[in-house]
């Protein structure tokens, strides 16, 4: 048991480190290090512009989507090399935020189901950050039950005509392409009538509207489709096979191994170490210590769980299911920590201004944003179902709509 690299891994790390050292935008290091919670904001520059510049440099150096084959813009790197790269890329990895959906979900789906022409046309540009992709799955009436989606695609000659609405699309407003799942046959049960496409986000009839979120920010979009034409050549997988194609997309989320999830623990530890209560520092209070300790061991538990997965990759094994707990644990923890930090601030905890008190409003911001951590990318409840069914082998839920044609499923207001 050790934390050491193998000689090959060490050599790879050295190469990566030197390259980052020579090419990273160091002027942003301090700012990027600070923003550990939530989405990245830069004071004077647009994250998409800076991100594109960094991604392009990486592509030129052979470090973009490095686990992809060379002919599609990657480096042909092994999974463990990808983890090492992420570690060495460090805070600059935050600049890749606009590309994560494309790299993690859209790209792998095109790679698995696209024809050779499509792969050579789209993947290298995606890898280099020249073209940004978004994912068009969720709908207002199809969140956890995404297979219940309503957006229709109807065949007209060699084209498909799409009408409907998607929601929670990150980056739709700056994306060039989108991965779209739509209903092509409403007369069969819901999982069987879906088909996957990709489309140009500048197509006529596509309208992107930002959503004003509960935390007051605008990070996601609604996307409306009115008679949008998609050529059949942009279909991924067979007609009616969209659900199984989407599972490939979602399975690629497991690549998030090695990516550190924000837990709020370092911020909370620092906050309690400096906050003066009536009887002294918060961190000297037994009740505070007890809570801090419980959060600290969850956070370290997640860290060492990811180390176990990295070790499996290092040996060339497939990591176990342990990593599935990450978002479930960290999402709840962020919310609990924010609530407790404000409790410690007492009446002043209600104030959200950045100069109001010691923590500069960061926990208030965390409180307002944290509900999304427990919903996006699988709700806490869906994640528990996944652990129960796929890890523990418990039976799936009894699904009353499983064998019912989609257009016979009772709905509210369709």
């Amino acid at each position, binding site marked *: 048991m050790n*934390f050491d*690299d193998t000689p090959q891994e060490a050599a790879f790390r050295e190469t990566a480190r030197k390259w980052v050292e020579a090419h990273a935008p160091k002027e942003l290091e301090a700012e990027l290090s600070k923003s550990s919670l939530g989405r990245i904001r830069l004071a004077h520059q647009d994250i998409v512009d800076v991100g594109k510049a960094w991604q392009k440099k990486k592509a030129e150096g052979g470090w973009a989507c490095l686990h992809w084959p060379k002919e599609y813009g990657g480096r042909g790197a092994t999974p463990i090399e990808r983890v090492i790269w992420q570690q060495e890329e460090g805070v600059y990895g935050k600049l890749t935020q606009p590309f994560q959906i494309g790299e993690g979900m859209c790209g792998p789906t095109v790679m698995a189901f696209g024809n050779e022409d499509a792969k050579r046309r789209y993947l290298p540009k995606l890898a280099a950050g020249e073209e940004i992709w978004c994912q068009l799955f969720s709908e207002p009436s199809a969140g956890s039950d995404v297979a219940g989606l309503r957006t229709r695609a109807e065949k007209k000659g060699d084209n498909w005509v799409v009408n409907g609405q998607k929601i929670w699309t990150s980056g739709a407003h700056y994306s060039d392409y989108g991965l779209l799942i739509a209903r092509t046959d409403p007369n069969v049960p819901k999982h069987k009538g879906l088909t996957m496409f990709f489309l140009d986000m500048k197509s006529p009839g596509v309208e992107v509207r930002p959503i004003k979120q509960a935390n007051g920010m605008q990070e996601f979009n609604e996307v409306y489709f009115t008679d949008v034409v998609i050529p059949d050549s942009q279909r991924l997988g067979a007609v009616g096979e969209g659900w199984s194609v989407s599972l490939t997309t979602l399975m690629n989320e497991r690549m998030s191994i090695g990516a550190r999830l924000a837990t709020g623990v370092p911020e909370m530890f620092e906050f309690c170490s400096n906050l003066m209560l009536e009887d002294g520092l918060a961190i000297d209070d037994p009740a505070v210590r007890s809570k801090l*300790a419980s959060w600290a061991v*969850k956070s370290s538990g997640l860290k*060492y769980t990811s180390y*176990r997965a990295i*070790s499996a990759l290092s040996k060339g094994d497939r990591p176990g299911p342990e990593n599935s707990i990450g978002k479930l644990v960290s999402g709840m923890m962020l919310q609990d920590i924010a609530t407790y930090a404000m409790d410690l601030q007492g009446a002043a905890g209600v104030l959200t201004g950045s100069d109001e008190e010691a923590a500069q409003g960061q926990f208030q911001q965390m409180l307002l944003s944290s509900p999304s951590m427990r919903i996006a990318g699988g709700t806490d409840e869906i994640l528990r179902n996944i652990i*129960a069914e796929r890890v523990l082998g418990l039976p799936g839920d009894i699904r009353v709509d499983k064998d019912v044609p989609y257009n016979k499923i009772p709905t509210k207001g369709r």
Partner: protein
Amino acid sequence: MNFDFSDDQKQLRDQARKFLTEKCSPKAVRAVLDGKAPYDKELWKGLAEMGFLGVAIPEDFGGAGAGHLELCVIAEEMGRANAPVPFSSTVYLAAEALLIAGSDAQKKKWLPAIASGEAIGTLALFEGSGNPSPKTIKLTAANGVLNGVKKPVADGAVADFAVVAARTGSSRRDGDISLFIVDLKAGGVEVKSLTNLDPTRGQAEITFRDCKAESLGAAGEGWSILTQVLDRAAVLCAFEQVGGSDRALEMGRDYALDRIAFGRQIGSFQAVKHMLADMYVSATLARSNSYYGAWALSTNAGELPEAAAAARISATQAFQHCAKNNIQVHGGMGFTWEFDCHMYYRRANAMALGLGSLSYWEDQLIDRMRKKNAA
């Protein structure tokens, strides 16, 4: 990165599991639970024969000279099997204290006897309620003679010797405490069994009256040695707790698959599934924290104090959580004496207190994290 046990260590774990499945069935555990014997003597003998008692004891002192990672995988299996033997007292506490502070003669006297199963050892630290602290130690030592009362002493009624924490000064500092080793079969010792939460591991009160004792380690070093022993035992106990958590989770899962209610397997209800998923989360966090503890223990890393506290907290929480919810998944049947659920519930809650309570270790962890942050 190789943050995992080696193939050999995993093989040892499999071997231990196979052995314990055969020799330590729930029926065997129940024999001790029901008071038919103070501990499972046959199992103890078998553990010695397998080389498990001395796995981390150097060959020079009669052990297998393997190491602490090997001991960790065995500890996990002991916890999974709910083994009714004085393993933790003897191996994690007494043997570790000897390894850290024993003289060559003391090691020669006791360690081979531990490895061969001839000697059961324990640590006599507590004096009534309270957590580990030099302030709570009132038992005195003067000129190698002990006077005072220790309780609870884990496995005290079956132990052959004890490492005893005694007061040798009055400055109210850590340096007032010294350790002694006492042959409990010699004179000056009175042992009384106490009833406790988990009868598969006994607790006793030991009274020392003008009892002759030998120093273990230098005078005034007692508290510093004890702190190290407790940290090392915390990691090893964490592995037992991890093993127990996994077993309790499995029992709950199996029952959820087996039991039919409202016309379906109860494991198909989300209320039950989510309970089991949360148990899996706790058990996984505990396992990962314990692996880090194992690394720190086996390499004697400077990170050990923090890693041990984290492993201890995480594993204590996980075992308590899994044992408690295992009963809940079982419903009424889980509350019968006949089902094994309560054996894990008892063990989980007894283990949560043995080396100091959860709040004690939470306190320790925060102190240690602060120390690290300050450095």
